[in-house]
């Protein structure tokens, strides 16, 4: 009984944290952008503009929710939700640290909701579903640019999902398990997978950027050529749901890179494991934001040739070499 209750509490806590994360992330992204471009970024609402995300949230909530006359009303309404749900469901099997003992109750708690036997496969499978929100959102708008954005995103995500999954296989071969907890445990004591799988790490990072639609691969919402891409017709909270999904996807991709390649919560003992874990994730999120304001966007044909002609053969070669070394 207490087990069930604990799972329920964990689900609620994780969901609330993940739901609230985009608020600070939008602020950090805009501040980093500002400083990279030698300006201040948001500065008006609160000290150093720290209340800006709340102002934005209130603004989005009170905006009119416009549904275009020619849109498919049912799919148009449901598409942001279809995009959002997989981004949250992924967290069901993500471990955040080792066991902790609750201070007052003296009860041992695992810092994950479920340690699945098929953990990494589950995450890759569920994360692949969020493409539906984008495709359907683009199609249901019944308008040129969103449709093109949706088509681009489906082609892009299928192409890069292959390289992403193949990059994981190298790690799985070394660790001999699909469970994320086992993968992290196998890396303890500075045996981080980035040292054994440097090529896999690079492939995973690049394909991950494409999978979460970040610059230099943000073609589904390419403002330069598509207006705003798949969510051009969306406004108000439905638009906010798409934005929320993108930020949550960025967080989960950073977490996945940390778990697979950077040793998870492994680090020098003077700080607890969870702190190391959060520091590594924060660093990766910063790098992803930094990339956004440093690199230009690829052209669509370049995106496809990078995915199919460089990353995919490279990841296959990586699997082959890893197999030979293990044997």
């Amino acid at each position, binding site marked *: 009984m207490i087990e069930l209750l604990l799972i329920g509490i964990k689900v609620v806590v994780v969901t609330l944290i993940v739901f609230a994360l985009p608020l600070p992330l939008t602020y950090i992204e805009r501040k980093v952008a500002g400083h990279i471009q030698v300006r201040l970024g948001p500065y008006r609402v609160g000290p150093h503009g720290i209340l800006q995300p709340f102002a934005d949230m209130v603004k989005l909530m009170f905006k009119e929710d416009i549904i275009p006359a020619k849109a*498919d009303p*049912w*799919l148009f309404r449901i598409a942001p939700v279809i995009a959002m749900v997989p981004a949250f469901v992924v967290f069901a099997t993500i471990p955040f640290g080792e066991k902790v003992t609750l201070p007052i109750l003296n009860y041992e708690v695992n810092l994950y909701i479920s340690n*699945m*036997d*098929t953990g990494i*496969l*589950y995450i*890759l*499978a*569920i994360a*692949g*579903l969020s*493409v*539906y929100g984008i*495709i*359907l959102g683009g*199609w249901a708008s019944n308008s040129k640019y969103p*449709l093109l954005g*949706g*088509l681009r995103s*489906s*082609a892009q*995500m*299928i192409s890069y*999902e292959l390289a992403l999954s193949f990059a994981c296989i190298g790690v799985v071969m070394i660790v001999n398990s*699909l469970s994320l907890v086992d993968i992290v445990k196998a890396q303890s004591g500075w045996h981080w997978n980035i040292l054994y799988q440097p090529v896999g790490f690079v492939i995973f990072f690049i394909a991950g950027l494409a999978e979460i639609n970040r610059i230099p691969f943000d073609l589904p919402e390419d403002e330069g050529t598509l207006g705003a891409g798949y969510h051009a017709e969306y406004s108000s909270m439905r638009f906010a749901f798409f934005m929320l999904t993108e930020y949550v996807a960025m967080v989960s991709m950073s977490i996945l890179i940390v778990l697979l390649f950077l040793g998870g919560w492994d680090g020098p003992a003077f700080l607890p494991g969870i702190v190391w874990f959060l520091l590594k994730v924060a660093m990766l999120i910063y790098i992803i934001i930094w990339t956004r304001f440093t690199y230009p966007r690829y052209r669509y044909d370049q995106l496809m040739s990078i995915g199919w002609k460089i990353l995919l053969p490279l990841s296959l070669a990586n699997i082959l070499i890893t197999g030979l070394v293990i044997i």
Partner: protein
Amino acid sequence: MAEQIFFFVFAILAVGSAIAVVSLRNPVHSVISLMVCFLQMAALFVMLRSPFIAVVQVFVYVGAVLVLFLFVIMMLDIAKAGMERFVSGGKLWVIALLGALLLEMVLMISRSRLSAITAPAAGRLTGTVREVGEALFTKYILPFEVVSLILLVALLGAIVLGRKELR
């Protein structure tokens, strides 16, 4: 008890969405129903204590095959495609054929050894990946290799068809 309730939720949703796939007029809505159906199938696989098959179901069918379906269907003229009915009412022989097929399936299932299969051991959800892998690469190595060869041939066929010079 709880498991039975979940089973009925998944089963009813699976059958309902499967009916929706063939009865909805809009092809895109049909694909969405098919996605719901596949997800319920994955849930049923988990209840049968094979999480690996469930994840593969989501990965391959929902994550890849259906996206390609959508990709093609989105290019269609939906208004026109929605007007055409798959089975027009006048064709009695189609309905007769479907009836015969249904009868045959009911007969086959009732006379098969499906009822002799024992229920899976409760609560065991670990180690299945290893078991599936071992079975595939030892006991069922020949079928596995034949299937991969067939898939490779299909892949080559698709590439040949897609080449520009041949169009």
